[in-house]
């Protein structure tokens, strides 16, 4: 949300207080504390927002475990793992950016922020690759979804040169409880949840990068110092939260059952 947008209003107050102190706060400490608590209450709503999706995922995973296992195997572990590393890296660079703002190093803050945005964009790029692959394999529910084809793929797997990393139908499977037609239906639930979860997560990434653009511009204009760096910290809190969501999404979606 935009509450992380800079609190420093244009017209600096004449009195001795720090220019960024709002009129209705008594001290900078009170203002920053209010901002931190406010941000965490907002992150509370985000926890429950994604919580609703986890609830649906939990029920359907137990109901149709084989569909989830099969569909999860069709995701590329390489891209998923790479994305997780990229996002944890961007968390590090974000933490460094906040540290830079705290220690009054303007150039460091700007550089770390730019690096974080780059890593965020890399993450989104990898998602685009994965989504493209889903469309190509007709794994998008509501868009002539065909799961059975992936089963025959081993036989016909030779000629269509799916990228080596895409391990959709290569490994041998154990005996499944659901037959082909049922898989065609229930894997659609997995992919519906997959696209809803990763889609929402990507949307939050885009918003996060948007916010960081504004913060970087403000840092570049030198608005922050050791006394007032709240906007950078808020952007940091938001970004770390988006990273935490992915920390949960990665095992839930990619690692359902890789050991057959």
């Amino acid at each position, binding site marked *: 949300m935009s509450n992380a947008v800079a609190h420093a209003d244009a017209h600096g107050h004449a009195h001795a207080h720090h220019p960024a102190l709002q009129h209705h706060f008594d001290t900078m400490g009170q203002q920053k504390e209010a901002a931190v*608590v406010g941000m965490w209450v907002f992150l*509370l709503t985000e926890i*429950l927002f994604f919580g609703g999706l986890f609830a649906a995922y939990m*029920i359907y995973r137990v109901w149709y475990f084989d569909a989830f296992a099969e569909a999860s195997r069709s995701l590329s572990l390489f891209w998923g793992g790479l994305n997780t590393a990229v996002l944890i890296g961007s968390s590090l660079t974000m933490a460094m950016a906040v*540290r830079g703002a705290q220690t009054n190093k303007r150039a460091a803050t700007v550089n770390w922020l730019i690096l974080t945005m780059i890593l965020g964009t890399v993450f989104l790029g990898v998602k685009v690759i994965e989504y493209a692959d889903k469309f190509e394999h007709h794994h998008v529910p509501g868009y002539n979804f065909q799961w059975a084809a992936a089963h025959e793929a081993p036989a016909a797997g030779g000629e269509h040169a799916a990228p080596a990393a895409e391990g959709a139908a290569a490994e041998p499977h154990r005996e499944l409880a659901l037959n082909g037609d049922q898989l065609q*239906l229930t894997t659609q639930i997995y992919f519906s949840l997959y696209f809803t979860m990763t889609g929402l997560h990507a949307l939050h990434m885009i918003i996060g990068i948007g916010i960081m653009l504004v913060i970087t511009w403000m840092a570049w204009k030198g608005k922050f110092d050791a006394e007032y760096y709240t906007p950078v910290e808020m952007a940091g809190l938001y970004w*770390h*939260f988006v990273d935490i969501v992915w*920390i949960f999404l990665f*095992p839930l979606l990619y690692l359902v059952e890789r050991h057959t």
Partner: protein
Amino acid sequence: MSGHVSPVSLYITIFLALMVLTAVTVGAAFVDLGQFNFLVAMIIAGFKASLVIWYFMHVKYASKLTKLTVATGVFFLAILLGLLLIDYASKGFTSMPMPLS
């Protein structure tokens, strides 16, 4: 006034810990633990998340109110998931009778 400034070395160690834990969780997925795969994955993810919250998000040095807010969020998420399970578990997790079964 400014919040706690953590040393860079702390950030690096936390980063490395997260990378190692990611590798561990991927590795664990290749080991057939039967029922416990999901549990192990969630414990590792939960631990990684608390590392990020505690150190990267400075909740370790934040006010008690902030810590309480984090706990409230997790508590009410647990209520949602827990009470939902009461219904589905007591129905023995029998799924919708598949039309083609």
